[in-house]
C-alpha cells in the first residue's frame, strides 16, 4: 500500500526524536508566552519551558483536562491573536459550555495532510467516491475528512444530515466506494442494506472507514463478510482538534500515530504516571505543530496500549492499540461522546427543574443506537392532559437530540421503574452485543 508522506511517516526514529524535541520545545515556548493558562500552570509547579530538555521531561508538566476547555471558554486557550485564526470549531464540552478550538491557516493544512495520509493508508485514491456519514455530534470531523479527501482528489460527498435510508440511497445511487462512518452507523447501514433487499454486489462500496469508537472485531468481520468491503479504523478526538490522528495500515497491527504532529504518552489513569511500555493506560496527547490551539498533555479518556516493535509497512510512526471502554465517565454513542452531567444540565435547562429520579441508557433498536432518558413522573411533571405530557417529551427530545448530536428518546416512567434494582447514576450501556 502506498505511503502519502514517506519523508515524515518513515523518518529515521532517532531523527524523529530530535524533531519531536525541537517541536515540543517551541510549542511549550509559545504556549508559555501566549496562553496565560499554561503559563500559570507551569509557574505553579515552578517549571520553565527551558527545563524540558528531553521528551521524558514532559512528565513534569501538569495534565490538561476536558474541564479546562470550558473553564477557559471561549478563547482562553488560544495561542495566537484571533486575527490569525481562520476557523473556529465548537464541540461538545463536558460541562455547560462547549469546547471552542481555533485553527490558523497552517493548522488547517496540517490537518488536511494528516487526514490525507490516514485515508491514503486505507487505500483511498483519486478514483474513489467518498461519502461521509457521521452523526451531527461529529460534524467537525465531516469538514476535516472532506478537506483530507479533497487533498487526495477523491470525489467527496460531504457530510449532509440525512436519514439513514437517504444515506443508503446516496450510497447506492452515487456509487460510493469509500464510506466514512462510526461503528454504530455502519452496523445500521448494513441492517438497512438487507432490509431493503439490496444485493451488496450491486453496491460499489469497497472500503469502510470506522471512526469515533474503538474497533469491534465482530462488526468488522460482518462488514467484510456481508458487504464484501475492507474496513479500516481511524482514531481521533471529537472535542479537539480532529479526526484521524492515528490510523491503521495494511499490516493491521495497531494504529499509527501521526507523531510528527502529536506526541503520545500512555499513563495510568489513577496515578497519572507513565505505564511500562506495552501496557494499557490512558492516552495523553501533546500537540507539536499546532499554532492556534496547542494542547499540552491532554488526557483523552481513551484507553490504549502502545504496540512495541516496528511495523512491516515501513512507517516508523509508533502504534497504539485502541481498547474498548474509557477511563472517564464519558460514553460514546455512534462515535459521539456524551456524559451524564451534560444530560442533567440540559434537562434542567429545558424543564426549569431536575426530576428527582432519572436513568440514562444507551440502547439499540434495529441496530440503531440511541440514548434513552427515563424520567419519573411526579407532581411536577404530571399533567392531566396527555397532550401536555407529549409536548414536554417532544421538547426534551428535541433539545437533547440537538445539543448532544445523537438520537434521544424520552420515556416518562412510574415510580416502580426506579425501584426494581440499583442502577448506576451514570449512563448505562444496554446495547446488545453484536452477534459475531
Amino acid at each position, binding site marked *: 500500500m502506498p505511503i502519502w508522506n514517506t519523508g515524515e511517516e518513515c523518518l529515521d526514529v532517532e*531523527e524523529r526524536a*530530535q*524533531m519531536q*524535541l*525541537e*517541536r515540543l*520545545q*517551541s510549542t511549550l*515556548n*509559545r504556549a508559555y*508566552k501566549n496562553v496565560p493558562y499554561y503559563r500559570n500552570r507551569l509557574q505553579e509547579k515552578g517549571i520553565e*519551558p*527551558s*527545563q*524540558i*530538555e528531553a521528551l521524558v521531561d514532559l512528565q513534569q508538566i501538569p495534565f490538561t483536562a476536558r474541564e479546562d476547555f470550558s473553564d477557559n471558554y471561549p*478563547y482562553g486557550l488560544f495561542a*495566537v*491573536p*484571533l*486575527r*490569525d485564526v481562520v476557523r473556529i470549531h465548537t464541540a461538545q464540552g463536558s460541562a455547560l459550555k462547549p469546547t471552542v478550538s481555533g485553527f*490558523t*491557516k*497552517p493548522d488547517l*493544512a496540517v490537518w488536511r495532510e494528516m487526514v490525507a495520509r490516514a485515508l491514503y493508508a486505507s487505500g483511498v485514491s483519486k478514483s474513489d467516491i467518498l461519502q461521509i456519514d457521521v452523526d451531527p455530534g461529529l460534524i467537525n470531523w465531516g469538514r476535516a475528512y472532506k478537506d483530507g479527501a479533497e487533498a487526495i482528489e477523491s470525489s467527496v460527498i460531504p457530510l449532509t444530515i440525512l436519514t439513514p435510508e437517504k444515506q443508503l440511497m446516496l450510497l447506492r445511487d452515487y456509487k460510493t466506494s469509500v464510506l466514512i462512518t462510526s461503528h454504530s452507523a455502519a452496523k445500521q447501514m448494513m441492517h438497512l442494506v438487507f432490509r431493503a433487499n439490496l444485493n451488496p454486489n450491486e453496491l460499489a462500496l469497497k472500503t469502510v472507514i470506522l471512526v469515533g469508537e474503538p474497533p469491534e472485531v465482530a462488526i468488522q468481520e460482518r462488514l467484510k463478510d456481508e458487504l464484501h468491503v475492507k474496513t479500516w479504523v481511524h482514531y481521533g478526538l471529537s472535542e479537539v482538534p480532529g479526526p484521524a490522528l492515528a490510523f491503521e495500515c495494511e499490516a493491521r497491527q495497531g494504529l499509527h500515530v501521526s507523531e510528527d504532529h502529536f506526541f503520545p504518552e500512555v499513563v495510568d489513569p489513577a496515578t497519572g504516571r507513565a505505564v511500562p511500555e506495552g501496557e494499557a493506560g490512558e492516552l495523553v496527547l501533546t500537540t507539536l*505543530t499546532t*499554532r492556534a490551539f496547542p494542547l499540552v498533555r491532554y488526557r483523552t479518556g481513551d484507553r490504549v496500549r502502545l504496540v512495541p516493535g516496528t511495523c512491516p509497512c515501513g512507517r516508523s510512526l509508533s502504534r497504539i492499540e485502541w481498547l474498548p471502554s474509557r477511563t472517564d465517565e464519558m460514553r460514546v454513542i455512534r462515535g459521539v461522546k456524551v456524559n451524564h452531567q451534560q444530560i442533567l444540565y440540559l434537562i434542567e435547562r429545558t424543564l426549569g427543574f431536575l426530576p428527582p429520579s432519572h436513568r440514562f441508557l444507551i440502547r439499540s433498536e434495529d441496530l440503531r443506537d440511541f440514548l434513552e432518558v427515563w424520567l419519573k413522573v411526579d407532581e411536577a411533571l404530571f399533567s392531566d392532559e396527555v397532550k401536555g405530557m407529549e409536548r414536554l417529551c417532544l421538547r426534551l427530545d428535541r433539545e437533547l437530540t440537538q445539543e448532544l448530536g445523537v438520537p434521544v428518546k424520552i420515556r416518562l416512567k412510574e415510580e416502580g421503574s426506579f425501584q426494581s434494582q440499583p442502577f448506576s447514576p451514570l449512563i448505562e450501556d444496554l446495547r446488545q452485543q453484536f452477534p459475531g
Partner: protein
Amino acid sequence: MLRVRNLKCYYGKIRAINAVSLSVRPRELIALIGANGAGKSTLLQAICGLLPNWEGEILFDKESLQGFKAPAIVQRGISLVPEGRLLFAPMTVLDNLRLGAYLRYRKRDHQRIGEDLESVMELFPVLRERAGQPAGTLSGGEQQMLAIARALMARPRLLLLDEPSMGLAPFLVRLILDTLVQLKEQGMTILLIEQNARAALQIADRGYVLENGQIVLDGAAADLLADQDVKRAYLGKDYREFYEGRA
C-alpha cells in the same frame, strides 16, 4: 549532520540562549531568523567554538563539539562566514582566500587548494578580477563574496553564515542568496542566519524563529513565510497592533 540539543549560552550571568534545540540534515539549507539580540549570532559562535562555557549538546556527525576550539571545529568541516565579514582589509583578495585554507596549508594540501581557488573564483568571477587588490578596497557586495569564498576554502561540509545580506543592496542580496542555492545544489549543507527573514526563507528548506534566546517556531520555510507571526516579526509590528479591532 548538525544536532543541537538544549543549548544554553551565557554572557556573564545573562543567558543569551535558553535551551535551544535544532538540527540540520545533510544537504539542507536551514534559515534561523529572529530580531536583533535574539541570540542568533551567539548560537553560531557556540557551534564554531568561538564561545566558551556553553551547556547542552552540539553534535556534528554524531560527535560532540564540547571542548573543541575553533580550529578543531573547522578541521571537522564547519566554516563560518562571520557577521560584518571580518576580512583582512590590508591583505589582497588572494591572500584572504589563502588564509581560508590555512589549516590545509599546514597539511601540505597545496594542489587541491589550487583547485579550490579556481572553483571559488569561478563561483565569484569578480574575485579573480580583484585578486591582487587589498580586500578593504572592495565594495560591500564583493567583500561578502570574498568572505563566503574564504569560508569555502576550508572545504567545509557545513557552512554557517551570519547575516550575509547585511548592508547590501537588494540585487546584491539576491546574488549572494542565489550563490547559496547554487552551493546547496552542489551538495553543501548550510545554516543561514538572517534578519532579512523573507529573503532567507525564500531559499531555505526549513526555518527556525529565535526569540529572546528561545525557538518559538519551526517548520517548512514555505509555511513560515506564510505565517502571521513571522510576518509580524519581519514587519516589526507588535501583537497589540494586530489585535486591535478584533479581540
